[in-house]
């Protein structure tokens, strides 16, 4: 039982780490502000989500698990809000590259 839980954790956390890698590579490689924004919001939030998913089987109680999920939701909401604000500012100030 604990082996199955550990396998789920390892798979999900590895996938999460991969998306952090992709997000950082996108941030460094994409050509302009708005495309880099895509790398940040999409890849990072998925990375955090998968790390949270991987930690759920290791949580001691239901409350701890719910707490992890609420932190992910908060991060998701933050990413979505901030990315819109940055995109708006970047669109209107065509001068930012």
């Amino acid at each position, binding site marked *: 039982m604990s082996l199955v839980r550990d396998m789920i954790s390892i798979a999900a956390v590895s996938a999460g780490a*991969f*998306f952090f890698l*992709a*997000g950082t*590579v*996108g941030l460094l*490689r*994409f*050509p*302009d502000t*708005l*495309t880099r*924004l*895509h*790398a940040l*919001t*999409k*890849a990072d*939030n*998925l*990375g955090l*989500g998968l790390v949270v998913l991987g930690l759920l089987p290791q949580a001691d109680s239901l*409350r701890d698990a*719910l*707490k992890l999920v*609420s932190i992910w939701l908060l991060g*998701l*909401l933050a*990413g*979505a*809000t901030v*990315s*819109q604000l940055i*995109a*708006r500012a*970047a*669109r*209107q100030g065509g001068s930012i590259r």
Partner: protein
Amino acid sequence: MRAHVAARVSVASRAAWFLCLWLVLAGATLDDVPAAATAVGAATWTSLRFLAPGSSRLSPRALGRLVLLFLYHSIVAGADVARRALDPRLPLRPGFVAYPTGLPPGPRRNVFATLTSLLPGTVPAGDQNAQIFYHCLDVERPVIAELAAEEEALVRALYND
């Protein structure tokens, strides 16, 4: 009279949600009761101030579908960005697309914009009149059709009044 009762119900349900959130984040200890009461009261007051109770009815099934669609989109979006970022040729065709929306400006349109900021390859970048501008990683993808499907799912789940 009926509206009055409905308003009370919505205040109580919001307070209950905030209380649940408090219990999850801070735990249940007797010493915390004053702090919890203050926090729940302040959160309920703030939420009522910024988001007046709506008239639409929640449909749990449609909401479930929306959540599933959202999770599916987050995964596809992340995979899409990862593929483009790690591809040596860097396959991007970035540009803006104007999406005509049926949602009124204000909270509903903002919720829609927030949800769609997690669709593959789209980030909302402001709105004007009945259009939302989206920045796309690849303007040749069927972005408008995907956005329309998302809007329909959202309206069914939350705004079916």
